[in-house]
């Protein structure tokens, strides 16, 4: 059952088109990663889903209702980002208590244990936290609130590597015990692909891909060999990336829809094949030009 339905949504800020004909259906009790480049529209999409922003066109439904200004939708979701605001003079523990008022599944004991694990004192104020600690604190809120729909918008900003790892492990553990729909936006795919079930790739405000992670792992194939030999095989194939690294030598990433026979042919022609890491696939798919940054420096 789809908990979030987006149909052809568009969002325009002044003259900047943030989302353009975006459609996606996100299912219940899944961890979905929202992946995209800077400025691809990730945050805008999440804020529309949370009901903070109103789409310029199209239709959004969360739990079957329009989320904009909807109290029931708001009660069933929590939106975690670095801009969460709490009264300046409050202790972290007081903040926890106020969250408990609003979220019936809130587990304060877990929140305090996590806080102790990350060595943050519950007597500190929200303002006194460093950037990484603040992100950690917000992430703890997202975990312990156990809201039916939990949205993390770049939750790991400022966290160090160890904390990031711990956070992802904690998220997975708690998710297994209390399944819920989790939306996680990030641009560091290699860190989160192990906990994700689905990947939603967004490019220039439109949907690029929506696949289970397992399928994305076999989505593309890297071919390396003589340019002439390669070109024979590339007829009708979807080419994601091409790099000419030596005279006559090319590396090409294409969609992996080769048959067994074709793969054997490739081997005969002296072309080596390699799986492409999911992170690289996403980078190639969302690239603006096929040659990557090298193209900027290649002036001939």
């Amino acid at each position: 059952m789809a908990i979030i339905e987006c149909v052809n949504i568009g969002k325009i800020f002044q003259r900047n088109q943030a989302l353009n004909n975006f459609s996606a259906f996100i299912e219940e009790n899944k961890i979905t990663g929202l992946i995209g480049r800077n400025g691809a529209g990730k945050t805008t999409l999440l804020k529309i889903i949370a009901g903070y922003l109103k789409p310029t066109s199209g239709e959004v439904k969360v739990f079957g209702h329009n989320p904009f200004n909807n109290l029931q939708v708001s009660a069933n979701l929590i939106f975690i980002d670095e801009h969460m605001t709490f009264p300046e003079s409050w202790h972290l523990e007081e903040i926890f208590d106020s969250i408990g008022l609003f979220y019936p599944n809130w587990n304060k004991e877990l929140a305090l244990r996590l806080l102790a694990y990350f060595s943050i004192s519950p007597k500190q104020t929200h303002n006194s936290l460093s950037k990484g600690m603040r992100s950690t604190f917000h992430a703890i809120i997202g975990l312990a609130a156990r809201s039916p729909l939990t949205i993390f918008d770049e939750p790991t900003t400022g966290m160090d590597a160890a904390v990031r790892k711990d956070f992802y492990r904690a998220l997975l553990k708690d998710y297994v015990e209390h399944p819920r729909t989790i939306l996680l936006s990030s641009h560091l795919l290699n860190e989160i692909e192990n906990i994700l079930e689905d990947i939603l790739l967004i490019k220039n405000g439109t949907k690029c891909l929506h696949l289970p992670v397992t399928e994305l792992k076999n989505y593309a194939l890297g071919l390396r060999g003589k340019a002439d030999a390669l070109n024979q095989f590339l007829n009708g194939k979807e080419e994601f990336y091409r790099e000419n690294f030596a005279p006559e030598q090319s590396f090409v990433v294409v969609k992996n829809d080769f048959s067994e026979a074709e793969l054997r042919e490739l081997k005969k022609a002296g072309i080596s094949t390699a799986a492409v890491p999911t992170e690289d696939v996403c980078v190639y798919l969302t690239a603006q030009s096929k040659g990557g940054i090298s193209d900027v420096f290649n002036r001939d």
Partner: protein
Amino acid sequence: MFLTETNVLAVTCKQYLVKLKAVSFSGLVILQAVILVFWTGGMGMYGASNVLISLSVRNYSSDIVIIATMIWALALAIMQTKKQAKNMDFTLVSNRLTSCLSDIGILATISFLGALTSVFSGMLQRLLMYFALEHSTIINSSFKPPLAELALDVVAVALYIFLIAAGGYLFGMLLEISRLFAFLIPALILGLARGQNNYFTDFLGFYITETSLLLFAGKVLLTSALCFALSILIYNRMEVRR
């Protein structure tokens, strides 16, 4: 298909509690204390004298404290509409309606508390003078605080503060639409006040000259309700946490 059900009243009450805890009343207390200390000289003074007698009259009243409290309430009402304050609501469960309703609750509470403290500051002033001046005719043995009158004062002052807060809240909301209102509204008010016509004095007179407390309360509450309703209408269409 919601997993958690809630309603407007429940969320409004919770937001009210959270906000009540976050509002700093110490600011008001300090403000009133400072004014009490520095204005103990009295509001106005006049005197006359001849060879035999010299007479001086000083007026003491809590008016200045009440005016300061009104300004404080106005500032607080405008601050409630600012992004920072609204983000706090939308960090947790909220919609535009509950956010505004809990704000109204807070403004009503501070109006009452502000009125209570500022009216009773008059009594405090009297007490201070009893100890400060040697001639303690200010409080003699038959002195009794006029409780009924004070209660009436508190209600009337609370209504005035609430009216001002409601206006401030609407002004703050308009500011969120466009910064231009920061110039337009004061210009409009000044223009009306300084102009040849009597609109402004008529408008003030509509409230000030009312002698029946009940009618006055009706006028104030109706005007405030109008201000708040307009604010909610404006806010209902606005995007948050941009």
